[in-house]
């Protein structure tokens, strides 16, 4: 699919969600994995916009590209915020504790990693690149 470029504002999240759902439909992904992919991408986009751009006082865009073959649907999300590798962050390991005893941080990243088949980060030039892969069922 053609690359989607949206401003790094939280208002862009619904456009990003619609783009992912379109890509999932085009690739033949079922409702449940489509939802999970959308959630995974939305969480990273939210982090990029909130921490990478807004809190850092930076203006920038979010770039999304969907591509698929018979085996998988791949979404690539890029931004020009400062380098940030979420895969190095500690995951919450206390989800079976009652809420009152549990730290909240890292929930978005946790949902990203749990909901896609492959998640990867790399820094390319002045961009962060996040790759999300959903395997397609064998036809």
């Amino acid at each position, binding site marked *: 699919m053609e690359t989607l470029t949206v401003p790094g504002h*939280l*208002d862009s*999240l*619904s456009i990003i*969600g619609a783009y992912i759902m379109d890509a999932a439909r085009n690739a033949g992904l079922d*409702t*449940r994995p489509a*939802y*999970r992919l*959308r*959630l995974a991408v*939305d*969480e990273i986009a*939210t982090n990029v*916009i*909130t921490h990478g751009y807004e809190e850092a006082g930076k203006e920038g865009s979010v770039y999304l590209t969907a591509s698929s073959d018979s085996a998988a649907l791949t979404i690539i999300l890029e931004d020009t915020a400062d380098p940030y590798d979420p895969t190095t962050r500690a995951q919450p390991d206390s*989800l*079976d*504790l*009652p*809420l*009152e005893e*549990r730290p*909240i941080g890292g*929930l*978005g990243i*946790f*949902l990203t990693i*749990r*909901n896609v088949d492959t998640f990867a980060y790399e820094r390319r030039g002045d961009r962060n690149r996040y790759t999300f892969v959903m395997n397609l069922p064998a036809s």
Partner: protein
Amino acid sequence: MAFEASLEMTEGGIAKVTLVGELDGSNAADFRTTVEEAASKNCKRLVLMLGGLDYIASAGIRVLVFARQKMGGGVEIFAISPTPQVNETIEMTGMHYSLRVLPEYDAAVVETF
């Protein structure tokens, strides 16, 4: 799709919050405001009607955490009719340990103290 959170107080002290649309980082603050409003009315129960909620991101889950902390231990929180996808996220984040999830509104359970 847009997001809406509306609050209705019953005479029995039940705060019923109906969520419709897609709850993400752009609108979670609206939901939080509604929860604060319910808390300010000293409700005995918080009932979240989720049948029309198509999507919930971690920003929405954080408001559920906030609700649990804001309401205090004596106020039971119900999540009614979540879609399978929303319910999956509730379970994945462990929220089902803190909320009582019901497949449909059951007055015998929700309105019995």
